[in-house]
């Protein structure tokens, strides 16, 4: 049995791109019918661009420009669908692979590059409006689910959700993986979210693997069912179907924003490449499995759907060109990234002056000066 056989799974597009909604998808079809051609094309362009970026970043890592790269290859539909479902006022808590989510919200992809190059520990300011309320990556698995829940609690306390005005109400969406779902933090986040009825969507991207460990080691029952145990309405969606991912996320976010409390989504997807550039998937998975999932590629699926609707050859070429331009731009700007001054290390450790740090910084300045001046 493939993990996609659950009768509760929401899927709109079959793997070959034909419109073939599962019974569970029926209630979502109006949301999909409401999408304009331009929106459908945007979904596609988002996915194509980020894949081009991802390939470029992987190459940059191979060339020694980055310490590490976690590819999002194969997970584009889950990310684009959910991110495009969020409203501008919503808050986003990514894990560390949500490259296209951050891009859609306005974060400069170079900020992720700088993180993976070892120039920063975060790289962007979530409170700067240009970053679309997007928080920085969190490498400690699952930790961000609690932060998202706390922010959601604050929205409840401040009356910023459930006012009846969808233009103003705010929600939170938090991303994590199948492996991370085993962390105590995620369970505690769900307890708090349910207790305080936070306007929050737990968005689990089940890409089937936590590095080398298959999802069966994390859970014997489908992961979306866990949400139910905490009293959180939960849905499983085909994460390689961008339309289904969009619709399920949109409804969940709308309900959460309107005061309905937390929602959980398990997006069934597949990490088509390595976990990171330090990983070797041939050690733990079969090429048959990889081939089967390659047949469910989210980009190919959406392309077939758009082609059948009559999208022009020109549109696809333009989308490819847009991706290539993004990748080029990132490569050029990566090569231009300078170093960081050593003072950076002592800055923003505390908000107010701290005697020990000041002393150490002074010591280092003197020491470096004495080295530059030559040994006496």
């Amino acid at each position, binding site marked *: 049995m493939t993990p996609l056989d659950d009768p509760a799974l929401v899927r709109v597009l079959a793997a070959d791109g034909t419109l073939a909604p599962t019974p569970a998808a029926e209630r979502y079809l109006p949301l999909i019918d409401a999408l304009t051609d331009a929106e459908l094309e945007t979904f596609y362009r988002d996915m194509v661009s980020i894949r081009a970026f991802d390939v470029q970043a992987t190459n940059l890592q191979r060339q020694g420009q980055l310490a590490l790269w976690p590819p999002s290859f194969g997970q584009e539909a889950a990310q684009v669908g959910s991110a495009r479902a969020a409203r501008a006022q919503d808050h986003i808590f990514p894990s560390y692979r949500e490259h296209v989510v951050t891009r859609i919200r306005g974060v400069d992809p170079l900020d992720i590059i700088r993180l993976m190059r*070892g*120039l920063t520990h975060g790289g962007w300011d979530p409170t700067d409006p240009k970053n679309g309320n997007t928080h920085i990556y969190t490498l400690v*698995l699952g930790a961000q689910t609690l932060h998202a829940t706390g922010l959601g609690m604050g929205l409840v306390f401040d009356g910023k959700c459930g006012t009846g005005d969808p233009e103003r109400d705010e929600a939170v969406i938090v991303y994590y993986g199948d*492996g991370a779902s085993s*962390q105590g*933090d995620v369970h505690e986040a769900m307890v708090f979210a349910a207790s305080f009825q936070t306007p929050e969507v737990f968005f689990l991207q089940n890409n089937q693997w936590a590095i*080398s460990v298959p999802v069966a080691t994390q859970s014997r029952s489908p992961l979306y069912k866990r949400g139910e145990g905490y009293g959180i309405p939960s849905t499983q969606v085909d994460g390689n179907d961008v339309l289904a991912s969009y619709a399920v996320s949109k409804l969940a976010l709308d309900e959460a924003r309107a005061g309905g409390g937390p929602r959980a989504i398990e997006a069934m997807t597949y990490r088509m490449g390595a976990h990171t550039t330090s990983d070797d998937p041939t050690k733990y998975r079969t090429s048959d499995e990889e081939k089967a999932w390659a047949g469910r590629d989210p980009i190919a699926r959406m392309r077939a759907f758009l082609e059948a609707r009559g999208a022009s050859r020109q549109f696809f070429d333009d989308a490819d060109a847009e991706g290539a331009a993004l990748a080029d731009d990132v490569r050029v700007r990566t090569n231009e990234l300078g170093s960081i001054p050593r003072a950076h290390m002592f800055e923003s450790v505390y908000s107010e002056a701290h005697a*020990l740090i000041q002393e*150490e910084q002074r010591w280092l300045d003197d020491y470096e000066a004495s080295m530059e001046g030559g040994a006496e």
Partner: protein
Amino acid sequence: MSENLPISRALNAGLRRALETNDRVLLMGEDIGPLGGVFRVTEGLQKDFGPRRVIDSPLAESGIVGTAIGLAMGGFRPVLEIQFDGFVFPAFDQITSQLAKITNRHEGAVRMPVVIRIPYGGHIGAVEHHQESPEAYFTHTAGLRVVSPSNANDAYWMIQQAIDSPDPVVFLEPKAKYWQKGEVDLEAPALPLHASRVIRRGTDVTLVGHGAMVTTLLQAAALAESEGTSCEVIDLRSLSPVDYGPLLDSVRRTGRMVYAQEAPGFTSLGSEIAATVMEKAFFALEAPVLRVSGFDVPFPPAKLEGTYLPDADRILEAVDRSLAY
């Protein structure tokens, strides 16, 4: 019989021997099975000992340590792998408030022969949470033993000694040195687990450190020698308890000590050692014990780690300061 092995392979051989000699030993951690761990220290062990002796755990550090406590209660000897230093903290509560105290709470009736292997320290240019030196958190906690090998022979023997220990052992592996080769004597254990060791003789200044820093101390000693200063180098090996004998003997001869560590200096192992040596060898000292350490800031982005981590020059600067007293 001896073999020339990198530290990671020496650990692998030591784990293998422990699995062979005691069928109550089991390994547990994230990705330690078919992948052999992200540093390949457990490579091939699941294949040979099966998935119930070498367990790929769910992705939950508190779960890994917490269940190991129960396994130890059931007579097993769990050897745990924490994937990276920065990911030990989700298990911190289980380690410090449970594992460390269980024997004491049972007045000795229940032992906790649990080993927690943690790749630690910098020098690998990694992203956040992958380069930390958390040793002081553990040495500060009574009930834990904390050790760190700096070479392949110690890696091979100390891991087996740690597994034999009836007490919980935090086993810190200097990840930057996993590929550093050394001669491993497969028959004769070199030293007891909790002994420190003089690894270079010298007469002017005593240099002390552990883990990856030992290599840097040896570099500094070689450079100092070319400038006419003779440094003695001591590998601490055991961080809790500390074996002060060789340190005090040495400082009584040299009159000077420099302690070097990657961890931040404030309330660190170096602080403790400096204080103790000053208390116990005050009249032998020609200069205060000096510490060289990481700065008291979060481990910086990789591009600054070269500035953050003590190198041979920073150690030599301290040597000069010591000699200037």
